[in-house]
């Protein structure tokens, strides 16, 4: 049994997340095997691309209900985080509904370019073990065009033109809009907290 597994959601940052875990001494297999996922102590749902294809991949693999029924800690990354919410405006897709909130296109304006691409500051909104050692003002790397403006589950936010959810957590379900695998020491800290 693997302690940590990565769900193969077809996104292209899967390799990077796996290497980031390896740098922390954690060997996490990439899988769509329901038994491996159910048996893991921690489950990570990575994702780059769009919410629709990510949901479709889960559906084709017969994993939608399985992911909804997981009771161990689950961490979604980027699009993997977005599909934990109720709905995504990107392709008008019903998502997993594990976190309260809806994913919308980030508004662009003068000087506010979309995609939101680069390093931005986190603002910690609530204490959590996931963000242990992460402080407001710490830098994280974001690349996305969609986001959740507000959620009762937000534990950290970020600002690009307007505020959006950077990290969300409710019970055993968590998600990071930024890329911990590409956010240097801050990202490594979040991943280490998750697998601890």
């Amino acid at each position, binding site marked *: 049994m693997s302690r940590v597994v990565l769900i193969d959601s077809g996104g292209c940052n899967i390799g990077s997340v796996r290497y*980031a875990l390896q740098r922390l001494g954690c060997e996490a297999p990439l899988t769509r095997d329901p038994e491996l996922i159910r048996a893991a102590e921690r489950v990570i749902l990575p994702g780059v*691309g769009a919410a629709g294809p990510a949901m479709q991949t889960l559906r084709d693999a017969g994993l939608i209900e399985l992911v909804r029924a997981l009771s161990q800690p689950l961490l979604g990354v980027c699009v993997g985080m977005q599909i934990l919410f109720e709905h995504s405006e990107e392709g008008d897709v019903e998502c997993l509904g594990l976190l309260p909130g809806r994913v919308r296109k980030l508004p662009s304006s003068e*000087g506010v370019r979309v*995609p939101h691409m*680069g390093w931005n500051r986190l603002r910690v909104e609530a204490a959590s073990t996931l963000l242990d050692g992460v402080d407001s003002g710490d*830098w994280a790397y974001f690349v996305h065009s969609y986001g959740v403006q507000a959620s009762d589950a937000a534990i950290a936010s970020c600002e690009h033109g307007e505020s959006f959810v950077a990290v969300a957590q409710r019970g055993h379900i968590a998600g990071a809009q930024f890329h911990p695998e590409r956010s*240097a*020491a801050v990202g490594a800290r979040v991943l280490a907290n998750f697998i601890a």
Partner: protein
Amino acid sequence: MLSRRIIPCLDVREGRVVKGVRFRDHVDMGDIETLASRYRDEGADELVFYDISASPEGRAVDVRWVERVARVLDIPFCVAGGIRDVESARRILHAGADKISVNSPALERPALIAELAEAFGVQCVVVGIDSLRDDDRVWRVRQYTGSPDRTVALPKPTLEWVVDVVALGAGEIVLNCMGSDGVRTGYDIEQLTAVRAVCPVPLVASGGAGAAGHFVDVFRDADVDAALAASIFHSGALAIPELKRQLRAQNIEVRDVD
């Protein structure tokens, strides 16, 4: 607030980092992983690797070094060179690159940009543009610049091409101003400002950095999102921590270095 990014560019040829002046006369700069790790430690915000031999030779990037870089790096990186279809892009992204950049093949077949955006999302798709001002003062794009013998001047004005590629699905543009590349007299503010005015996605300035003040100028005057440079960093003429100190002193938001 989103910080301005500093991006060392590593030109790769046959698995080694090289650097030329005005895209010619390439000199060996060292081992890819060693240089990548050094820049990460110094506070580079992102790295770009251009496989400069791939496109003119009609072959795709060797993904083995991409995977080695992905294992050691914990900052984002982009790979460019000879990507001419969705499958070769997929191999590079799956090897661990965060973004892929297309240049000459997108000029051969602009639909490539749309295919990549559809397959991976616009945030993965960077379009590199090599641009030079012609005698009639119009900036136009160049193709196959990795090899001087094959470089072609195209009739396409750069500003038109920028609008085209954004409409097709480019998530970021790297503008290589060839007239200033490698000569360290500063970024081409005039050209970058003109491109900025028609570019709604992130814009990366490339070509001409010779001093910290050039970065201040390009962020303040051309409002670019990121500045890319090679020889000024590779030669040791400017260290990234010192550059970031100077940018911060000018109230330009940059990521703190640990």
